[in-house]
């Protein structure tokens, strides 16, 4: 601040203008920093999505996000609204839903394929999140965009076997 004129009013106005500019500068600098911070957090989240079956490695993710391990979980939550652990858990459950719906692979096989190491934990987690057991989900889920030849072959009411796709699926696994 120059403060040369000695005029109180002018000086105040000048102070305000300078403060305003400073604030603008600060805000801009801050938002650029937030952008870089966000982008690094997103990079860590993408790493989880890309390798969701691998164990949660906070040290590695913190490295990708360029923050300390202790800070990472808090920072991730501040950016995306949930902890990395929860994010990964729900990604795995989403993948499980996809595999249950779109493939005929056994539940145990899917459980290990998406990164769970215990069937009990997987079943409990799945039920907590989806509100149904994996088997029940599979039975009720609609296969999406299946080629018409399949729906025609499998969903036609028939006296030769189970009357619906879901029942056939359940019967086969039991």
């Amino acid at each position, binding site marked *: 601040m120059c403060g040369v004129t000695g005029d109180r009013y002018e000086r105040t106005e000048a102070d305000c203008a300078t403060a305003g500019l400073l604030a603008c500068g600060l805000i801009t600098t801050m*938002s650029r920093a937030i952008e870089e911070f966000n*982008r690094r957090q*997103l990079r860590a*989240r993408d790493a989880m999505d*890309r390798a969701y079956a691998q164990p949660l490695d906070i040290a590695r993710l913190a490295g990708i996000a360029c923050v300390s391990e202790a800070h990472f979980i808090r920072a991730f939550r501040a950016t*995306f609204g949930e902890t990395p652990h929860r994010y990964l858990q729900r990604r795995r459950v989403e993948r499980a839903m996809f595999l249950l719906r*779109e493939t005929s692979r056994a539940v145990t096989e899917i459980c290990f394929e998406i990164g769970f190491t215990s069937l009990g934990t997987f079943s409990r987690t799945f039920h907590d999140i989806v509100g149904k057991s994996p088997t029940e989900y599979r039975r009720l889920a609609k296969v999406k965009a299946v080629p*018409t030849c399949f729906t025609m072959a499998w969903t036609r009411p028939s006296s030769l076997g189970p009357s619906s796709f879901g029942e056939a699926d359940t019967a086969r696994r039991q």
Partner: protein
Amino acid sequence: MLNSISISHVFVLDQDQALDFYVGKLGLEVSNDLDLGFMRWLTVRVPGQPGRDVLLEKPGPPAMDEASADQLRELITKGASGFTLGLTTNDCQKTYETLVSRGVEITQEPTEQSYGTDIGVRDPFGNHIRIVQPVQVATQRS
């Protein structure tokens, strides 16, 4: 009524960096790069595919106030712009390998889906792009 989608847009935070990514790495070509004075009209397209341009638009004044642009930038960088662009390829695996060799950030490795094989890609700013090799129509009708 309407007969085509001619132009869509992706918000980018820096147009030179966007050119480097969308043209240099993704392999699109510049269809327009005009300094309109108030903005740089920068569009890209799939080489040899006129009529479908993507505007690489930089948010900021005078189109929007600085504070709004800042909010937008913050959202884009945390991936909140959602699914911004979908492209097709004849060979997903080869495209994937090319993009990896060029240092492109991959969000999803090649995955077989009901509609084909696809990968997920992140642009330098946080926008999500998907590239799919569609299943052959002949297979779909089998």
